[in-house]
């Protein structure tokens, strides 16, 4: 009986191994972009066309800029940590960006900024995410909100900052600008 059981187990194991081999082969043939390596998608999850009524002191300069991008990152989101790393490592020269750290407590937000080496960027710790939710209409993260003279003109869900920056730059060109008002 145990012998039969052993060989039944072996048949199942062989089937699983073949399945894993097929998955591995398929994964190797799928281009990286399709596996989620980098993407940017417009999202309606923001108050497009509105101007926030209240600005935190840290972001008070945002309405004065022609184009400004707010990255809404959460301290409890894994992909936000990857975005923070991309920001520090590859987009440190991006001066038209501010970070809104959505967090349960100020201490967590400050820790996030310090641990992710985001001190060189303009950042605002948004306790309980109330400002980004009430003024920007953003409920999830990471989300990028594009402001033109303080008005929300676009919002993106994204995983790749370089792609996002390229998208924002394209959008900022006068001939291609599309106001969402």
């Amino acid at each position: 009986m145990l012998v039969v059981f052993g060989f039944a187990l072996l048949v199942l194991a062989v089937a699983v191994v073949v399945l894993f081999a097929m998955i591995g082969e398929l994964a190797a043939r799928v281009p990286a972009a399709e596996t989620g390596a980098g993407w940017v998608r417009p999202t309606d999850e923001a108050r497009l066309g509105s101007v926030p009524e209240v600005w935190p002191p840290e972001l008070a300069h945002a309405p004065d800029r022609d184009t400004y991008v707010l990255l809404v990152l959460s301290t409890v989101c894994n992909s936000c940590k990857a975005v923070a790393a991309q920001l520090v490592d590859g987009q440190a020269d991006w001066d038209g960006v501010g970070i809104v750290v959505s967090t349960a407590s100020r201490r967590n937000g400050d820790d996030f900024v310090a641990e992710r080496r985001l001190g060189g960027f303009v950042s605002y710790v948004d306790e309980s995410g109330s400002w980004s939710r009430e003024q920007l209409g953003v409920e999830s993260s990471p989300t990028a909100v594009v402001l033109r003279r303080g008005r929300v003109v676009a919002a993106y869900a994204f995983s790749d900052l370089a792609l996002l920056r390229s998208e924002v730059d394209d959008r900022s060109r006068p001939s291609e600008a599309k106001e969402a008002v």
Partner: protein
Amino acid sequence: MAFGTVLVCLGNAVAAAILVNAAAAKLVAPERLANALRQLAPASIAGWIGLDGEGTGAGIARTAAGVEAAAAVGLLVPEVRVPAAALLALLGACFAALGVAGSVRGGTAPCGCFGVDSDRPLGAANVVAGLAMVGLAALNARHGLGAGSGYAEAAPALASILSIALSLWMRRRLVTRLLLARRAATPGSEVR
């Protein structure tokens, strides 16, 4: 179970797990081993053994996969264990010879021994693996299994567990990537 039997059981289970994974990978993606063989085959005999052009050699890789699978299963059945060990020795000798050929001729194509998960060319590692297989075959030839040794019950179960564990370990990067992507990728999935 006597110590010698335990040793044979463990060795054969490990060998069977490796062979099952190697066979599955070659069945799914035979072209990698075929590439490596085409690179190593001398021009004088390449045509004769069916390695004379782009895309050839997949049949050889699939045949090798079949032999590996047969040896793996045979090693786990007490009645055919010794003939299977002879097959194992033959495979080991082939692997070692290919490893020597790879080292001498400086092959650069991934050996494809485990499909997409093997990116090293044929070389010293194949020689070592081949010799280990020959050694295990010799151990099988020398050591008889007594009646009621428990080998027939233990070896297949152990080989099954090791096969799955090895398969997961070989694809650990893919598994990690899929798990992370599942947790972090879709827009709006990370609601605060």
